[in-house]
């Protein structure tokens, strides 16, 4: 394997981790907005205590992906920064408002609690959506390098559909995670119900995305079908996850949920290869000189050895069942 491919794999890994950890936090915010029924208050309380210790740390995967991009694939970074300017800004605004609202409502004086509650919930929708939109756009082949074109290449059905898909995935993951954390039966049932709904939206969005892949995406659809077993595995994992929820084996459901989302992203990555931004920017054409790539790879391996154990420890301390 080439070093450029290895680094692209790291990038994909960072993306997967951001989705199953960071975007799941956003999913929690979405569920916060959708809390209802007898256990509504308990739902919100659980969401807050689940997210509070980890949401900031989970930014790191996004930063990692960004740094990887501008160090290893600077051409792609520039093109994305220019052609996806507006969606990325909106994604940022979601990040800023979500995080601020979350702490203001947690540590606030209580006066504008309702306002921050609403901002937290609404902002939580925007980041997963625009992240998905961005990913859809760079698949769709509508982001062209030759400028003078509109900055609206991402404004299309396929990216929109992937945006919805990502939002649903984040919501589904959050719901499943929360079923594990919920201690009372009624609360757990509430999140299981929400997980079913999110899974429904997820499946519809996935099918819609598959149908809406534009012709400009070139070989993407063919490659996606060639590696059919990966999205198939995602589907199976999702089914297993739902079955596990039905059987109330929530920890197993969590494992399968993560597997489902991860597989979907890996399948997407395999189909995208070798493009970073279809059809003008490939992994090789965007790559920085080898003199940079080698130490970067070393730093990443070293960093993972330092960072991953800390993350595992953090999760263990907070997610272990007392």
């Amino acid at each position, binding site marked *: 394997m080439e070093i450029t491919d290895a680094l692209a794999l790291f990038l994909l890994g960072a993306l997967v981790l951001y989705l199953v950890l960071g975007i799941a936090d956003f999913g929690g915010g979405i569920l916060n907005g959708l809390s209802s029924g007898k256990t509504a208050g308990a739902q919100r309380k659980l969401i807050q205590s689940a997210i509070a210790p980890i949401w*900031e740390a989970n930014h790191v995967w996004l930063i990692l992906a960004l740094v990887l991009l501008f160090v290893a694939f600077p051409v792609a970074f520039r093109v994305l920064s220019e052609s996806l300017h507006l969606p990325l800004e909106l994604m940022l605004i979601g990040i800023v408002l979500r995080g601020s609202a979350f702490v203001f409502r947690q540590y606030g004086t209580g006066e504008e609690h309702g306002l921050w509650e609403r901002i937290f919930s609404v902002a939580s929708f925007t980041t997963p959506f625009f992240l998905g939109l961005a990913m859809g756009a760079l698949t769709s082949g509508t982001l062209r390098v030759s400028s003078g074109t509109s900055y609206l290449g991402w404004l299309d059905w396929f990216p929109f559909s992937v945006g919805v898909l990502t939002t649903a995935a984040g919501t589904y993951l959050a719901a499943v995670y929360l079923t594990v954390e919920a201690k009372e039966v009624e609360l757990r049932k509430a999140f299981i119900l929400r997980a079913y709904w999110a899974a429904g939206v997820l499946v519809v969005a996935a099918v819609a995305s598959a149908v809406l892949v534009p012709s400009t995406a070139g070989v993407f659809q063919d490659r996606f079908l060639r590696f059919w077993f990966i999205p198939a595995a995602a589907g199976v994992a999702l089914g297993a996850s739902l079955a596990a929820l039905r059987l109330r084996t929530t920890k197993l459901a969590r494992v399968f949920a993560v597997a489902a989302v991860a597989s979907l992203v890996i399948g997407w990555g395999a189909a995208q290869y070798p493009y970073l931004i279809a059809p003008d920017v490939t992994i090789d054409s965007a790559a920085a000189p080898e003199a940079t790539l080698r130490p970067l790879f070393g730093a990443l391996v070293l960093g993972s050895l330092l*960072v991953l154990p800390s993350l595992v420890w953090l999760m263990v301390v907070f997610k272990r069942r007392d």
Partner: protein
Amino acid sequence: MALLPRLDMALSLGFHIVFASIGMTMPLLMVLAEHRWRRTGEKQALELSRAWAKGTAVLFAVGAVSGTVLAFELGLLFPKFMEKAGPVIGLPFALEGVAFFTEAVFLGLYLYAWDRLKPAAHLAAGWIVALSGLMSAVFVTLANAWMQTPVGFSLADGGFTDVNPLEALLPPSAGHEVPHGVLASYAAVATMVAALHAWRLLKEPGSKFHRLALKIAVLVALPANLVQPVLGHRSGMEIARLQPIKLAALEGHFENQTGAPLLLGGWPDYEREETRFALPVPKLLSWLATGSTEGLVVGLKGFDRELWPPRLARFAFQLMILFGTALVLGYGWLLVDWIRTKRLAGSPKLLKALVVMGPMGVLALEAGWIAAEVGRQPWIIYNVMRTEEAVSDRPLLLSLVLFGLIYLLLGFVVTKLIAHYVRRGPRILKETDGNH
């Protein structure tokens, strides 16, 4: 036009740096308070540590999200800079990311696992938060130092080749910029914290909580404010050597001169090529810049007119020195009084002085960074790439306005919240403990 991206970035950086500085300094203060509690068992020490930790949690979060904005804005605002420079200065940014992550993880543990961790582990977690905060600041300043004195690459056909990231990690200006910039953050925050607690002591003179808070804050603010000018002087000498046109602009110095006077105040007139209405102190600039009263100081006229940095650099520089000097005098007085009376800030006069000095550290911090960055113009990479070659062509006015409004809102809310916390003092713990 490079102005909008520059304004956008300046806004985000100016906002973020306050919260990032808090994220470096507050963990230090809260750990010192916890140490005091573990040692003496004093109730107010525990209350202080926990109250400071709560405040830190909110402010750290705002720092984290505004930092994320900056990471994106590097690309959104300066895509052509990142395309060329990304591979060269990726390393300090990556290391900053690791430091931030470590800080976030251990802050999570410090705040939420207080009851689950043994005392030694909890204290260790706190120290790791403080240390990673420091490392983050160091790495980010290293990236800036590279922009001021770029090394670790060769220029060929308008591109960067022979990239050596390790050499780029320690540029020549790092030696002066990192200590001065980092200490500025500690000074700014500790001075502000001291002011807030001095304010409460004027209203509640008997409060042991605020007394202890003041003591710990001054423990950091006092040495920081007194050492800063020394580091600043060193920076001045290094800038004279490494970026002479910047020094000339900061000092409003136009002519190549030996035995050059230091100009206090005044108005740099770029048309008439002189600084008018300034108060000259003879020979002092030569001495400050070169160590000798007859040393040569290169003036702006020794350089191409189009390379002259904007005059804002000088104004910011003078403001920084003004506030820095006031802090030295004020804290110097505090120290003398402390030694003489054996009491820290025993008189209301001193407490009031502490309150007045509160914002000066932050203002000096912002002014100093404005001087550093505007003084680097028209370059984004000094002597290598102009800012106007680096910027995005995208329409940016809307983003500027939008983010400006968001920062205004967040700043307002945070100020209100912290004022409330400080006013309530130790009572804030009971009032917000349901929410953690």
